[in-house]
């Protein structure tokens, strides 16, 4: 450090002391801290469900749930560091140890490739996968985006902190509004979009927005968040295999994943997965929550049949060919998703990117673009971008960087 920096630093320090040295208050007591801790635990349980990709669910045969108790015996509560509550008959291999990061997640200077091959939002401009755009009318901001036929469903807010799901026509004009809690979820082919309300009601919209159905309310304490829709038509009896299920996570004192079906029943998703975080033929979700906000997750071939487990990552989504998963750090707290990994289906990290050390690059939301590429919104050095990450760790811009405040995220990728 040269002398000028030293002197200027000292001058700056005096100015900062001048601002705060008169503050001698201690406004917080233990009760305040404990109250916030309980809120954090509830929030964390729901937050780990963010970024859900398209999913389908198979019910574990249990009885119809009545109230919050339901089948399944006692709630296991928080894990205390003991064995994972796998319900498979044999021991579940734990992957790891995680190898050293293979590369830094520095997205400050990348080549620019093709635009995203899926829908995405840039502020209030919606981009279709074919490159055409529409401007949203009647919504002030977008927090999530789901494409449905020619139309859209977006998550926004009313300016008072209340989330809303809003249907948009093909020309971007806002239509019906619904109270929203948590995330939007889509069916595997994107024909159905579902969400939960702050009171647990489940709504699905399909057929390009022409059909809206209400599925049974999810029991248990909120917050609620839709996680997945199982099939492309929720209207019972239209075809022999019509009907769908919507998987919804709840938190409160008991993190759970519920299945609300168009048959009119609600049941728990079994298999020890408390918060489903990904599905595409296989199930992936969180099985353990720890008081320090770390988690453990499992990949299950079917509910209760565990393939492997990890306490290093949260499993965000399967590639369309089911060969890989994109994952982020176990906690996902602080600066953002500091770790982004691509695992193969055996749990072996194929690409392990560390973002939170030197580059200050952060990954917000990860979506598979195709079998071999993940798209993620990034923020680094005051610039937002959409970055394409290949299975070999190669990176390029799908949307070149734009300057912006870290508080005003411009880009959102289509929920899949």
């Amino acid at each position: 450090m040269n002398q000028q920096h030293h002197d200027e630093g000292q001058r700056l320090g005096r100015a900062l002391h001048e601002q705060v040295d008169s503050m001698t208050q201690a406004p917080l007591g233990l009760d305040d801290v404990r109250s916030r801790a309980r809120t954090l635990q509830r929030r964390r349980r729901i937050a780990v469900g963010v970024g859900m990709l398209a999913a389908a669910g198979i019910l574990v045969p249990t009885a119809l749930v009545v109230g919050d108790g339901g089948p399944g015996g006692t709630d296991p509560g928080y894990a205390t560091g003991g064995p994972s509550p796998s319900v498979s008959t044999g021991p579940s291999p734990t992957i790891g140890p995680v190898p050293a990061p293979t590369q830094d997640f520095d997205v400050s200077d990348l080549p620019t490739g093709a635009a995203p091959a899926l829908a995405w939002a840039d502020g209030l401009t919606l981009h279709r996968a074919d490159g055409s755009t529409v401007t949203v009318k009647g919504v002030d901001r977008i927090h999530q985006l789901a494409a449905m036929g020619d139309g859209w469903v977006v998550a926004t807010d009313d300016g008072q902190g209340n989330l809303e799901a809003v249907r948009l026509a093909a020309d971007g004009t806002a239509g019906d509004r619904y109270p929203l809690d948590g995330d939007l979820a889509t069916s595997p082919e994107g024909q159905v979009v579902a969400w939960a309300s702050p009171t647990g009601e489940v709504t699905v919209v399909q057929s390009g927005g022409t059909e809206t159905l209400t599925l049974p309310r999810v029991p248990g304490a909120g917050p609620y968040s839709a996680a997945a829709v199982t099939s492309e038509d929720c209207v019972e009896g239209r075809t022999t295999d019509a009907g769908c299920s919507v998987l919804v996570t709840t938190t409160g004192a008991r993190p759970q994943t519920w299945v609300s079906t168009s048959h009119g029943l609600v049941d728990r998703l079994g298999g020890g997965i408390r918060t489903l975080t990904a599905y595409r033929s296989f199930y992936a979700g969180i099985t353990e929550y720890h008081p320090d906000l770390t988690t453990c997750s499992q990949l299950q071939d079917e509910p209760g049949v565990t393939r492997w487990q990890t306490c290093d990552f949260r499993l965000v989504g399967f590639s369309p060919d089911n060969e890989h998963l994109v994952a982020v750090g176990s906690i996902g707290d602080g600066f953002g998703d500091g770790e982004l990994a691509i695992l193969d289906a055996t749990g072996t990290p194929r690409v392990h990117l560390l973002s939170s050390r030197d580059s200050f690059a952060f990954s917000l939301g990860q979506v598979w673009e195709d079998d071999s590429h993940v798209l993620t919104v990034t923020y680094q050095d005051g610039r937002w971008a959409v970055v394409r990450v290949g299975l070999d760790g190669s990176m390029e811009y799908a949307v070149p960087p734009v300057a912006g405040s870290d508080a005003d995220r411009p880009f959102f990728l289509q929920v899949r």
Partner: protein
Amino acid sequence: MHIVADTGVARMTTAEDRRDAEFTDYLRARQPRLLRTAYLLTGDRAGAEDLLQTSLAKLYLSWDKVNRRDSVDAYLRRIMVNEHHSLWRRPWRRREVTVDRVPEDATVIDEYDEGQDARLWELVQTLPRRQRAVVVLRYYEELSEAETAEVMGCSVGTVKSQASRALAALRTRAPRSLDPRPQEDER
């Protein structure tokens, strides 16, 4: 759990009781200083209390794991900095945060007067969050570059570059306010 005899009445003291007692002592001893740091990070009192409450809650949840009690402050600083940066992940929540005043980030102040501290503080609030955090940790908390890097979760080189950029930005906008000489002349 162990049993403590108290005037003939057995009273159970649980690990939770002990933790709460320890934590309460920590709150009493350290809260004012922590609140000052939170204020410098957030720029407003309500935001500072909210940031500190959340950070203390996270510390409380991890209290039993913080084995080296002499490092609790460092651990909490890291939580605070991380939590402050993570606020942007909840855009609708951020809109609920109020500020005491809106900084004029385009203003160039080239006069030296008695309001220089306030103006410097105003300009500090316009710095990008990570640069501002480095400024608070290096020049208010007086942490070394290595300690700042540990709190920020970055390299020493990054701390140096962020601090250099911050000083350069402040120097450009208020060249006289950063000049230490007038302050020394007053002594």
